[in-house]
């Protein structure tokens, strides 16, 4: 058993920031991550990091834009904390040597981004995330923070009190990918989940192959509710063959969208008369798909994004990376031809329910970054708000877990924050079936930390043995079933029948997963085994997304419903919560907090 004060699971932007904060607070901290830190998906971010740095801009404008962008599903305490702290976090990165793009006077540059009332997006070329990730990893190296890389965390060691709010997290179980060894990790201060996105629940996504929603699924099964899972952001400009992202920066610089008739669709068909191509992501995504559905798409699949008129000099100066992406992954030269694009899954606004200090309703269990939902982005995330989120809330989780005295949270978590029961009648009984279900809390009435961890380790060793020894279906088939139905039915456009079909398909996939087995018998670097365990997590998050989407009978932000074409503020300014409840998901609601310490937000109509 390994022991540390704080264990951070995942070493992308959120995990690294949390680890550095915990270290600053004097804790002995370790990063446990399935990829080497510099391989994390934060490295793929292109566009930038929002922070109100300049005179003329201010944190409350940033907060206001974020709340409006969220379509009034964000929580004011989270949004205010975020907007106030982002500037110091960004400057700190700069002090750590991050190579930001610069103005003539040597200060960091800022540019306009969709949904922002001020050009407050700082950036480093079109590869901001790469530089952020590497800069933070360098700082972790400087501090000598211990890293267990290529260790896959499979389970949390949590006490098994009936009420999740009485449970305590003492550590986790991880699997050394290189050797196959399964070990317990004890955390005296806390475990911080920073495992990133869940894009692999869909088959067309900008996310990395490693983004399988592990943290969400593990916390969910340990008893932490998942919040607003239906809120999935689709990005309007991804390359059709791979899902590789073409940054919003292209439209920001003046790129134009054309349909097969070479019409400028955003204007010609009046999807967004004022903002055109720069309307928010959900609007542009729906416009593109409408073109395709109405027969004006190219090859019945995509539209064109043209930046040729911007001129070679400007493109090379600001969008050089885009040329490489289009060339390498689609074989298209962006200087000579328009680029093919279509919407793709991009970001999970929902996730593990946390308060502003990053803590969940289980004592000692934290979450930060894309896997968490402190409820900053609500129903729609503004471009450039995810990176500052992982800085601000990653740091807070790290400090808190390391024992820093923090102001009590204003956001309530756990089942007792419930306002009303949910009402959804899925066509099939959702929830886990036998092989998939697992007692996440330790067996017996164990509460002594070491015993809780040992039990969890025992459980994992048995699970892995069983998977390696039995014969059965390959996880890839099950994964494909889920991914295909999610893309077909729980995509940009959502209809009741389709959502119910998706639930039936996911249920079938669960049944199929009962017979899953790993064909590779080796303990050395067994990726077959890892992917099999990940697929289990994909099942849980896909079901949560779909159930949430079926329940929310309105149209808000990224969540479009054929049968419900309006935002219903009277009824729906509330968070969708889903609790595991021994494998039978329980749906309930929690109020949205529109009133902050300093300002109160009034819902306004979104128009373009």
């Amino acid at each position, binding site marked *: 058993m390994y022991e540390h004060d704080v264990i951070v699971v995942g070493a992308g932007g959120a995990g690294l920031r949390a680890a550095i904060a915990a270290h600053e607070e004097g804790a002995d901290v370790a990063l446990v991550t399935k990829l080497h830190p510099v391989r994390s998906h934060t490295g793929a971010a292109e566009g930038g990091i929002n922070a109100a740095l300049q005179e003329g801009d201010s944190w409350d404008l940033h907060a206001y834009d974020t709340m409006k962008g969220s379509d009034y599903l964000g929580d004011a305490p989270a949004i205010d904390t975020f907007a106030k702290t982002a500037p110091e976090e960004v400057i700190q990165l700069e*002090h750590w040597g991050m190579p930001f793009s610069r103005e003539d006077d040597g200060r960091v540059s800022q540019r306009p981004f969709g949904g922002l009332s001020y050009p407050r997006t700082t950036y480093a070329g079109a590869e901001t995330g790469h530089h952020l990730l590497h800069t933070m990893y360098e700082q972790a190296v400087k501090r000598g923070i211990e890293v267990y890389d290529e260790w896959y965390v499979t389970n949390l060691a949590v006490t098994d009190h009936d009420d999740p709010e009485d449970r305590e997290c003492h550590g986790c179980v991880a699997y050394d990918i290189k050797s196959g060894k399964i070990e317990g990790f004890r955390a005296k201060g806390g475990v911080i989940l920073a495992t990133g996105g869940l894009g692999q629940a869909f088959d067309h996504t900008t996310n990395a192959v490693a983004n399988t929603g592990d943290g969400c699924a593990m916390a969910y099964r340990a008893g932490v509710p998942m919040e607003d899972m239906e809120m999935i952001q689709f990005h309007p400009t991804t390359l059709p063959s791979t899902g590789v992202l073409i940054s919003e920066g292209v439209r920001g610089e003046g790129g134009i969208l054309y349909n097969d008739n070479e019409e400028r669709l955003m204007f010609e068909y009046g999807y967004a008369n004022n903002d055109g191509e720069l309307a928010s992501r959900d609007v542009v995504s729906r416009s593109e798909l409408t073109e395709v559905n109405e027969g004006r798409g190219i090859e019945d699949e995509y539209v064109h994004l043209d930046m040729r008129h911007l001129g070679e000099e400007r493109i090379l100066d600001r969008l050089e990376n885009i040329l490489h992406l289009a060339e390498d992954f689609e074989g298209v030269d962006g200087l000579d031809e328009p680029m093919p694009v279509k919407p793709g899954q991009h970001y999970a606004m929902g996730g593990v329910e946390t308060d502003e200090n990053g803590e969940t309703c289980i004592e000692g269990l934290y979450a930060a970054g894309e896997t968490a939902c402190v409820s900053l982005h609500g129903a729609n995330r503004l471009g450039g708000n995810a990176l500052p989120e992982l800085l601000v809330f990653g740091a807070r989780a790290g400090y808190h877990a390391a024992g820093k005295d923090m102001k009590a949270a204003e956001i309530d978590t756990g089942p007792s924050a419930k306002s009303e029961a949910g009402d959804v009648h899925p066509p099939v009984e959702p929830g886990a079936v036998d092989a998939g279900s697992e007692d996440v809390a330790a067996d017996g009435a164990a509460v002594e930390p070491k015993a809780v961890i040992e039990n969890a380790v025992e459980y994992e060793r048995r699970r892995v043995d069983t998977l390696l020894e039995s014969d059965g279906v390959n996880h890839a088939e099950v994964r494909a079933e889920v991914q295909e139905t999610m893309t077909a039915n729980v995509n940009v456009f959502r209809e009741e029948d389709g959502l119910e079909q998706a639930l039936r398909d996911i249920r079938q996939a669960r049944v199929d997963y009962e017979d899953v087995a790993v064909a590779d018998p080796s303990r050395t670097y067994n990726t077959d085994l890892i992917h099999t365990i990940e697929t289990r997590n994909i099942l849980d998050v896909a079901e949560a997304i779909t159930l949430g989407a079926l329940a929310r009978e309105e149209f808000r932000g990224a969540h479009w419903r054929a049968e419900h074409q309006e935002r219903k503020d009277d009824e729906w300014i509330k968070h969708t919560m889903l609790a595991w409840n021994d494998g039978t998901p329980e749906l309930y609601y929690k109020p949205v907090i529109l009133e902050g310490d300093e300002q109160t937000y009034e819902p306004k109509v979104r128009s373009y």
Partner: protein
Amino acid sequence: MSTQIEQKETETEEQETEPEVESPGERRRAAKRQRLAEEEAQRVAEEETLDDDETVHLKVFRYDPEVEGKQEPRFDDFAVPYHKGMTVLDALIYARDRYDSSLTFRHSCRQAVCGSDALFVNGRQRLGCKTQLSALEDPVRIEPLPHQEVVKDLVVDMEHFYDQMEAVEPFFDADELPEDDLEEQRQSRENREKVKMSTRCIWCGACMSSCNIAAGDNEYLGPAAINKAYRFAMDEREGEDRKQERLRIIEQEHGVWRCQTQFSCTEVCPKDIPLTEHIQALKRESVKNNLKFW
């Protein structure tokens, strides 16, 4: 000592004739010309290009230290249906998911930023996700990176590479920071341009694997680590003292002077980092630095 200095001076002279750093536009046009030329040469060689209903033949290196029957390294053949835009990584994933789930390789981002799928493809270090099958000759031979210990199939042990990266103290260490927490350290645009290419490294290890010197001298820091040192040594925001320390690290016996300017690292780097040029620049800095003390 004096001979060493002489040697360094010759190196410096050679430098004068090196081409100036190209602009991104020129670099890109050169790369495109090269790519078109390669594709054309291949078209001529094959007299045809791949069609959507054709099959690509993969010859994939296999090895598992643990499983009987796989302990002897061998090549497995896979026939993968081709579609336009398909990359080496796509083909490997297809082979793994449809034919043999034990086929093992690293990958994650599929977009040339995570650096985890550097492989030896048709005799050259490349990122699997960034290499179009249409640019390769059939059969496509896929092996793990040379000069690294193979863990299993296409997975190599990266520990040594990481150790070398860490040996150069790869972190920013500014002399003094502005007093105000909300005030940045100014950096000129020129200085940012100077270090820009060096900051693009994704730690894929292709350069190290292609380097003859690194293959023969296990302690040689190698191109990626030296490039990392360049990134900080050339950053105007770190002070003179720190720069001295950085130069001391790269001047050591297994540092920059081992480089024999063979350019193999520069040729394979998927991020087009002018590695050899950066190594030469550090040699120059080091000479200048030593002259100061004479």
